[in-house]
């Protein structure tokens, strides 16, 4: 089957490029953040200490700067090859081995292209627009770094107590760049594209933010590291499945399949509603008049609340993905650059390096929204296998084996096992979402601008408010993120 072979090739390509991207990023971080300070630690001068500290402080920004261009290259290639598979084609496979270097060649081409400023354009604004568009994707994602690396010491510095708030604030800046570019290009298509983009971003940011606020409400914190950590312990603890609301079910399953750990021995004798009891909030039940002896009714209410909570969160996840798609102008919401109407929208007049920056930022934004989804909904760096099942399947044994094999590397701090495992899961999740976005792109036609607005204001925003309110109530009845 030719398709199978193509999928295999895409898989290989992805693995190779992942090694290139993350190898390069980690190499840069390791050299600047660990090797240089280690080398400098033998000198006992203030200057040396200062230099070492500066290097360590610069590591996060360096990692992002190394990461963004290589990653964008990979994502473009990934998208093109992925789309090719969906659309019964082969995709780029000529440059380098099996087309691996196609986008690298494209990047080189874009850099050497003539940089044209159209006559009548506002040259200053025209130059500023790509910068304003691109800059937020560098600093906006900083707090996420700490979350996705499992709070690695090098990246602790970028964590903020109000992380998600900062990320959202930063991610709404690029629209200014789009409007700027559209206005400064002195082209009607660009102008319409830019203005459309502003309208679209404003309308779709509301459901996007509301769905994330719902998650923050469940988590009780804005700190992305905290949110990621809360969800540790398997797929049922992830926010998308109610953030541990199903703990009762989990426990019951664990008891059924496990070799009866002594601590849980007595629990296993209890009935279903008592298992459920571990997932509802007793004070609330008592507050509405369901005290001891009414566990059955309380259990039913709790079960009901769990269903509502999980349903709401699933909807919130859908809302987030929709809003994110609109936020980063991807099909079916790519109105600002609607090719069949507006030529290319706000970036019609851009060429060369400026266009490359727009392009880069677009794919980086896709990556960022995917990683927000991974951290906020999909448990960050958490392994999807529940802890008890993992233990049964011999997870710790494998882990210690890997640790042992990597001991020399761990000793020179080249590998940090908690970060390594977390990062691998994050990578898989994030690119899974990216793949989903590619799939969407290969399937749907585009909305019309008035239909888009209708959909945003009349469907998504009310829905996100309803979800928000439902979660507020349901959370009171269900144990979420307690004990983890």
């Amino acid at each position, binding site marked *: 089957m030719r398709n199978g072979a193509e999928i295999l090739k895409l898989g290989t390509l992805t693995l190779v490029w992942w090694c290139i991207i993350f190898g390069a990023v980690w190499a840069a971080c390791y050299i600047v953040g660990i090797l240089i300070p280690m080398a400098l630690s033998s000198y006992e001068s203030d200057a040396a200490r200062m230099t070492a500290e500066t290097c360590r402080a610069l590591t996060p920004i360096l990692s992002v700067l190394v990461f963004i261009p290589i990653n964008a290259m990979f994502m473009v290639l990934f998208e093109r090859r992925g789309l090719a598979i969906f659309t019964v084609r082969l995709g780029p496979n000529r440059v380098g081995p099996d087309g691996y270097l196609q986008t690298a060649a494209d990047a080189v081409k874009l850099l050497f292209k003539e940089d044209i400023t159209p006559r009548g354009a506002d040259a200053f604004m025209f130059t500023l627009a790509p910068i304003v568009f691109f800059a937020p994707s560098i600093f906006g994602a900083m707090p996420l770094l700490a979350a996705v690396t499992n709070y690695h010491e090098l990246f602790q510095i970028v964590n903020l107590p109000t992380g998600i708030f900062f990320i959202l604030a930063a991610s709404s800046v690029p629209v200014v760049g789009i409007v700027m570019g559209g206005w400064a290009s002195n082209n009607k298509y660009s102008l*319409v594209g830019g203005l459309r983009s502003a309208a679209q971003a404003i309308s779709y940011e509301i459901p996007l933010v509301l769905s994330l606020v719902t998650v923050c409400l469940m988590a009780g914190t804005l700190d992305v590291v905290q949110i990621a950590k809360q969800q540790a312990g398997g797929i049922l603890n992830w926010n998308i499945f109610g953030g541990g609301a199903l703990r009762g079910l989990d426990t019951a399953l664990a008891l059924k399949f496990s070799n009866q750990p002594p601590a849980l021995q007595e629990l296993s004798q209890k009935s279903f509603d008592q298992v459920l009891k571990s997932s509802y909030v007793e004070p609330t039940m008592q507050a509405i008049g369901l005290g001891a002896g009414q566990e059955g009714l309380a259990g039913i209410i709790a079960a009901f609340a769990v269903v509502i909570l999980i349903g709401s969160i699933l909807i919130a996840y859908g809302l987030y993905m929709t809003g994110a798609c609109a936020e980063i102008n991807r099909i*079916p919401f790519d109105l600002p650059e609607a090719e069949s109407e507006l030529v*290319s929208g706000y970036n019609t007049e851009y060429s060369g390096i400026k266009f490359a920056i727009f392009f880069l930022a677009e794919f980086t934004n896709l990556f960022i929204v995917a990683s927000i989804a991974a951290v906020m909904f999909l448990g960050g760096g958490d392994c999807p296998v529940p802890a008890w099942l993992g233990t049964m399947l011999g997870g710790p044994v494998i882990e210690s084996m890997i640790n042992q094999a990597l001991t020399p590397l761990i000793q020179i701090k080249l590998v940090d096992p908690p970060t390594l495992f977390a990062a691998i899961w994050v990578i898989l999740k994030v690119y899974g979402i990216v793949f989903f976005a590619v799939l969407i*792109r290969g399937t749907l*036609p*585009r909305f*019309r601008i008035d239909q888009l607005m209708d959909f945003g204001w009349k469907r998504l925003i009310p829905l996100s408010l309803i979800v928000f309110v439902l979660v507020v109530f349901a959370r009171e009845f269900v144990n979420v993120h307690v004990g983890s």
Partner: protein
Amino acid sequence: MATDTEVDLTPRLKTDEMLINMGPQHPATHGVLRLILTLDGEIVRHTEPILGHLHRAQEWQGQNRTWFQYQALIDRVDYLSGMFTSWAMARACEVVDGCEVPERAEWLRVMVSEMNRITSHLLWLGTYLIDLGAMFGFPFYPFREREKLLELFEEIAGQRMMFNYIRIGGVMRNPKDAWLSKLKRFTEEFPDRVDEYEAIVTENPIFLKRTKGVGILRKELGMDYGITGPSIRASGVNIDLRRTKPYSVYPKLKFDVPVNDRDGDTFDRYIFRIREMRESNEIIKQCLDMLPQGEISGKKQIAGLRVKAGEGFAAVESPRGTLGCYIISNGSDRAYRIKWRNPSFCNLSILPELLKNHPIADVMAIFGSIDVILPDVDR
């Protein structure tokens, strides 16, 4: 200060209509149509199409090339349905000349033309989805089937698009048995493929939103503008030359001509093209079963081919509508006057009416739905 109390309440904000120039180098104008749109906000108030960017003087060439040379040129008039342009001219010449076309040639003509109709509609389907913004993904599926047909064309005519297969008096070449069995296999699997397209597109909510109720073509308006083909059949006018003015062996074939019972919108135009593809497939099946043996050309294919003096008009039902050819011959080896009646040219003339008061995003949805091929417009 006496004027202090007088406040000017007239609105200061001046709104104006915007002229926007769509094309000729616009990614979605299917070639080089230029539309000058007058926009009120995003609403189109007035449209002026500017044609001729692809004008190749096909009629002038007809007067200055011999019939034999010109035969090879006219596939380029409508490059997506070359069989039909060839056929229209061949028919016009045969009507004027009075030469007999062998039976087998007629069956072969019907067969290849219906294949060509399918390829044309398939390409339309793909590009129309692109017009609606499905940039990747679906548009490539129709091309998969189209590719198979183009390979068959290549085998029989030596060319994938500029066939020059239907000649004055007959056809160029006899198909081999292997070719016929390949075609048979294609016709057997094709309905499933159409089901596949319909599964992806017909009930797609975004597609429905974009097409339902958009660009409604009133029956009377369409008849006033001389619209033909699937576009007018989707608006309820039963004009299909294969049935209303039967030619060739169409009377012997069983097929439906789908006709709508109300004024059609872009969605109807989509669905009627889909139905037409299925019907064409049926026709090919019947042709394969009923193909007789015999000669394939009633006129010697030589460079000095001549057509008797006289004048005549003949038309065929192309994928876009009535494709007519009006020739005046003076008995020499080239035409005295040759005039093409191109369906795209006539169908395009209604565009300004259809676009009126639609948002700019619908311009391409409507323009795509009337299925215009620019070389066919400009000739």
